[in-house]
């Protein structure tokens, strides 16, 4: 009798186990399902409208034929300037945290704040830059947009730089120091070199992140219907153009929005996949 109930218990445990694992498999399929649906929608809606003229024609008034050339150019300019501001600052800050202040109190405060900044709502950064830059300058501008993007890139670069530089073994630093190299030289010539691919990965991830950001650009770079030659003026950029065109009632604008969405997403996915090939460690959380 005892043996029988034991068998029942055993079977029940086996059954619960099976059930939970089956559910876990289903949730994974659930997650993949959305990815496939999203990508499928994107490709089927956007690819038909993706032709060469997208790249060299400016955004049209409704009803006319046009492209996204000015927006693509604007996005590239904003992203490049944003990374040029955010990445060096981030690398230097990460260097400080890893090389000079591993265990200090202030460093752990900075680390903490950096991680909060990493996940803070990007629209808040837009509001901040609006108040600090746009209001002071009196008009929307590419600079403001780039600055907002730089603030998003900064914490990503700080975090990866620090993590990657910490992976460099101390014995390497000691070996260089023993040869008489001052610390700046140890850091620049040895540690940077060893952590190079990791730091680059962080910068690439930052590029991927900011090239799709829309919210902070709404109040900073705004938009521009024409080819903008100056970073000092409102500048056209893909995310905001996509937002405006997608929300519009015009069919041809919506088609352009889908084409733009395909461009952005493929670029970002490409960067992400490159990063994973580039640096084959299972740690990335951005």
């Amino acid at each position, binding site marked *: 009798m005892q043996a029988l109930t034991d068998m029942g218990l055993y079977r029940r445990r086996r059954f619960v186990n099976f059930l939970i*694992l089956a559910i876990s498999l289903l949730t*994974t399929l659930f997650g993949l399902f959305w990815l496939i649906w999203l990508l499928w929608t*994107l490709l089927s809606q956007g690819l038909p409208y993706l032709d060469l003229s997208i790249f060299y024609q400016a955004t049209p008034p409704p009803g006319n034929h046009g492209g996204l050339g000015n927006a693509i150019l604007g996005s590239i300019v904003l992203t490049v300037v944003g990374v040029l501001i955010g990445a060096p600052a981030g690398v230097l800050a990460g260097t400080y945290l890893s090389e000079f202040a591993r265990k200090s109190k202030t460093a752990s405060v900075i680390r903490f704040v950096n991680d909060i900044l990493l996940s803070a*709502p990007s629209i*808040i950064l837009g509001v901040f830059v609006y108040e600090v830059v746009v209001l002071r300058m009196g008009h929307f501008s590419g600079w403001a947009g780039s600055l907002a993007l730089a603030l998003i890139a900064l914490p990503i670069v700080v975090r990866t730089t620090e993590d990657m530089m910490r992976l460099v073994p101390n014995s390497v630093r000691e070996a260089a120091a023993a040869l008489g190299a001052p610390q700046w030289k140890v850091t620049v010539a040895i540690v940077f070199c060893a952590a190079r691919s990791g730091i680059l990965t962080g910068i690439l991830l930052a590029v991927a992140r900011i090239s799709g950001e829309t919210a902070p650009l709404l109040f900073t770079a705004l938009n521009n219907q024409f080819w903008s030659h100056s970073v000092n003026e409102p500048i056209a950029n893909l995310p905001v153009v996509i937002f405006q065109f997608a929300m519009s009632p015009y069919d041809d604008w919506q088609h352009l929005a889908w084409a733009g969405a395909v461009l952005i997403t493929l670029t970002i996915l490409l960067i992400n996949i490159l990063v994973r090939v580039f640096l084959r460690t299972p740690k990335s959380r951005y």
Partner: protein
Amino acid sequence: MNWEETLGSAMNTRIRRGVFLDKVFYHGTRIFAWAVLAVIIAILVSLFIGAAPALKKFGFGFLASRAWNPVTEEFGALVSIYGTLITSAIAMVIGIPVSFGIALFITELSPIWLKRPIGTAIELLAAIPSIVYGMWGLFVFAPYFGDTIQPWITDHLGPVPLIGALFSGPPLGIGVFTAGIILAIMVIPFMSAVMRDMFEVVPPVLKESAYGIGATTWEVVRHVVLPYTKIGVVGGIMLGLGRALGETMAVTFVIGNANRIHASLFMPGTTISSTLANEFTEAVGKMYTSSLIALGLILFLITFVVLAVAKFMLFRLAGREGSRS
């Protein structure tokens, strides 16, 4: 001067230069590290300054008022706060079990060759820009949801007492519930990545001893892995919550942007971030802009607290891990 002195002074200048450059390098990097701190303080200060006129006029009533009338300049944050919290709550209800399941699958169930591709695929969900989620939500998901799933839910859950009111109303497709679902999809990669990393640091010897006394996989997870990683899992959930609270573009597309609180989750609403995205550039008048900035301040404070708690919990787990190895 003999050669020894010459050499000595040359070495001295070299060393002195090295020391000097060391100082430059140290302080140079330190400035940028402090800049990170300065940024967050500057954000707080500027939001406070921008929000001051509205906060002065409406006081704490701002938090409890449902008003949002640019013409009479009456503003209140309640509807936006409600929308933000309720969409994030829906996202958590859907997202937590799914993220847990995915983490469980990747760490315990998946064959080794499949771990990486699946992990990467889930992480790619996080790489897709939020505006794409928004467009997909508005043009593809919402119509489908409104045509097929929503009527079914209303038919089956609508008559149920208590929760029925949550699921009644016309099947619009867009609305608070749709926004919550899309948020769930967006935070799943973050939460499942943290949970997976947590599950993977459980010492194999603990799991093996449980398997050794005959525990099933689920029992090992339930009684060994989860207790060991409890704080980290909660930290990961808070991290996802922080993301969900602040997400802007996807929500702006699908929530319907109506400044009302409905009993039904199927009706349009608004969140802090979508109100900001929709109205900030068009806001005229000091009080209007200031009220919007006050909304931003509230959002920032909420996410700050949530993320700080997340960070604290993840940090505690990391600390324990360090002391063990």
